[in-house]
Structures are given as structure tokens and as C-alpha cells.
């Protein structure tokens, strides 16, 4: 009988940090910490292939923020790691946004040292970003934003970061790469009052060091 270790990692190299989450069951796994501000929902979805529901609300207020992360336990290398996420959203307001990224953040909101995918309404296409301590690169993909699940992934080494969407290489950046160790972060937010909730779902995420 085969070990999980040996089918997922070459024996010639020591395995680094690695995690996989299918976002199933009655509650979010304890390895995530959450930030749940304002109204809306951050809970497992009772629906086929629903994963985790991250939804803003239509309630008047200062904004809804739904964030999951590793509480600043940053096991992943900014010079050699991979993330893969199955994520979707359906939004109807011009202030809605989301990011699926690897980030160093030490505060509630990611403001530096990260790479990954984002959509800030009223963008038309999904975009890939990288940022060091001060400057962000944002590269639009060729894929129009829609409300279907997509496979968003990224890979970074010491010189280059690449963004893949549904398996296709969409974006490459060699400047403004993150300079500090990373954790997975998924953010959904709406900064002002809006009439239609941003309904996001994540049903798979995997990260590992190279």
C-alpha cells in the first residue's frame, strides 16, 4: 500500500510545507482564521460543489469584508511556492472586489508583499498582481470576468511570478515581487452600500513550497 507522501513528493528532496483544503464539512477548518466585518455571510455552503460561501450583503453600511487567512503563520516562501484555488463570484455592484493571493500581511488588509489573482469591479477581465513592500504590478488577463468557477493559480521563484487561469499561462511579472514569507489569503469585500450581494465561493485551495 502506497504512502501519500511518496505519491505527492519526490523522495530525492525533503518535502516542504504543503496544505490542501477542500472546504467541506460543517465548519471551516481550524487552520484558517477569519475576519468577518459588517454584514453578509462567511460559512460553509449547503449546496452541491459550494465549498465556502463568502458573501457580502445588501445592507446599508460602511462595507462588508470577508477574509480567510492563516493568522500570519507564514510557512510559504516568497522565492519558491505555488498556490492553486478554485474560486468564483457573482457581483452586481461597482464597489465589489475579491483577491485570492499569497500574502505576508500582518494587519487586516493586504497592502504589501503578495502575489495572486484579483477582480476589482468595474474591471472587465480577471487580473494578476504582484507587490513588494511599496509598488504593485497589475496585469490584466485575456479572460473576461464571469460568475463561473475558475482554477486560479500562481507560481513564484526568486526572479519571476506567473499567473495561470484554468491552466493557461496568462500573466508574467519580473518586478515588484514580494520580499517576505507568505500565507494564503482570500478576500471578498464591498466598500459601500450596494443593491446586489457579492456571492463568492471557494471550494479548493492548495499551497506548497518548491
Amino acid at each position: 500500500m502506497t504512502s501519500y507522501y511518496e505519491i505527492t513528493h519526490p523522495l530525492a528532496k525533503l518535502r516542504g510545507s504543503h496544505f490542501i483544503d477542500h472546504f467541506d464539512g460543517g465548519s471551516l477548518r481550524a487552520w484558517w482564521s477569519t475576519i468577518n466585518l459588517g454584514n453578509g455571510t462567511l460559512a460553509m455552503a449547503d449546496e452541491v460543489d459550494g465549498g465556502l460561501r463568502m458573501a457580502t450583503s445588501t445592507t446599508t453600511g460602511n462595507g462588508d469584508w470577508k477574509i480567510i487567512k492563516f493568522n500570519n503563520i507564514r510557512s510559504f516562501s516568497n522565492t519558491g511556492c505555488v498556490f492553486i484555488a478554485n474560486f468564483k463570484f457573482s457581483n452586481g455592484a461597482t464597489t465589489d472586489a475579491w483577491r485570492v493571493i499569497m500574502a505576508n500581511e500582518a494587519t487586516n488588509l493586504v497592502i504589501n508583499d503578495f502575489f495572486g489573482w484579483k477582480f476589482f469591479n468595474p474591471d472587465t477581465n480577471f487580473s494578476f498582481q504582484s507587490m513588494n513592500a511599496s509598488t504593485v504590478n497589475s496585469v490584466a488577463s485575456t479572460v473576461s470576468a464571469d460568475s463561473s468557477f475558475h482554477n486560479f493559480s500562481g507560481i513564484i521563484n526568486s526572479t519571476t511570478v506567473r499567473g495561470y487561469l484554468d491552466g493557461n499561462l496568462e500573466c508574467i511579472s519580473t518586478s515588484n515581487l514580494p520580499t517576505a514569507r507568505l500565507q494564503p489569503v482570500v478576500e471578498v469585500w464591498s466598500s459601500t452600500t450596494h443593491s446586489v450581494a457579492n456571492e463568492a465561493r471557494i471550494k479548493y485551495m492548495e499551497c506548497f513550497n518548491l
Partner: protein
Amino acid sequence: MKSLYEILYGAKVAKQRVVEEFTGDSLDERWTGFNTAGSGSEAILDSINGGVAITAPATNSASRILAFNGIRQYDFNSSVVISIWKYDNVSGAIAHGLMNETAGTPLTGTEDYIGVFVTTNPSDGLGSSDGATGSTVSMNNISSDTNWHWTKIHLQDTFAILVADGSFDAVKTTNLPTVKLQPFLESRRFTSGATVSNFRYYEVFNT
């Protein structure tokens, strides 16, 4: 689309297995920590490839042990254990594998266990006990240092094989455990100084 089940088991019926990567905000709730004396602790580290750090109690000869709270689902004569680990190599010991003990330390020889033991003295190796007598065979591939290592124990009814850092290392045929087992990860202090042991991967399954 192929299932993970089919990759791991083919057409066979699956047996008990746990895979632990020690990532994220906190230690998975399947683990229970206890001390043989004093008060130790553990935490997931905020560092690249850091895993979990287990700090032994500040009491001579005391251990901090992570285990499955006495839930013993692993077979003493047909199981495999894989670990990635390191220790600070100061004044204590690291041990990991499978044990029958529900409290206390598996190092005394009066409980059934099988595991890898690394200390600052020359008795490092593959250790086991049949509940009456404990003994150890030496490792060759790994010496006392502060580097990450990986080890694999194949436990059968009449022998146990140790693979260390990818190569065959040792075989043990005496004093093998004879009862059901649970995982254990141990950090033990001997005489002075803090002892910290780190793990970033642990897998055990029945074959």
C-alpha cells in the same frame, strides 16, 4: 477524473490513515498534548517550512508529547510511519512513531512502542518495546545535528525496517510492540536548557 482513493488503494478496502502537514493557524484538533512532568507547549511556527515546534517542559527528564488521546487505530504488525523532523540538539531528545501508552512517556520500555529516537548521546536509533523490554538498534544515516530529516518505519509482525533520508538504515527484530498503537511526537529534556523538537510532516497508515 481519478480519485485520491484509487491512487492510494486501487481496488482494495482502505485502512486507517492520517496525513498531517502542520500548516495554518493552529494545530489540528485530532492531536492532544500532555506532559510527563512540568509544563511544555507546542505551536505552529510563523516561518517558511517551519511546521510545529514542541517545547519540552523546563523539568529534568520531562517530556511534552503529542498523541491521539489514547485512540489507538494503528496495527502493531502491519503499519508504516513517515515523519519529517528536526531538533535543537542541545540537551534533550526527539522521538516519534507509534505507541500504546495513553499517558506518560513511551521511553521507559514498560509500554509498547516503535519509533525513531535521537538524542545527544550515542544511543540514537530505531527503538521499540514489547511492553516488557525496550531496546534500540543504531541508525547509520542520521547523526545528532540540527538539520531536517525524514524517516520511514515499516512495521511488520516479525521485523521493523527503518529508511532514513531516502536510504535503508536499520532493521529490528526484537522487542517489537504487540498491541494496538497511536501516533506520538515527543520532545524531551534531559538535564538543562530548553529542548525544542520540530515536525512538518507525519503520516501513518495500516498496510
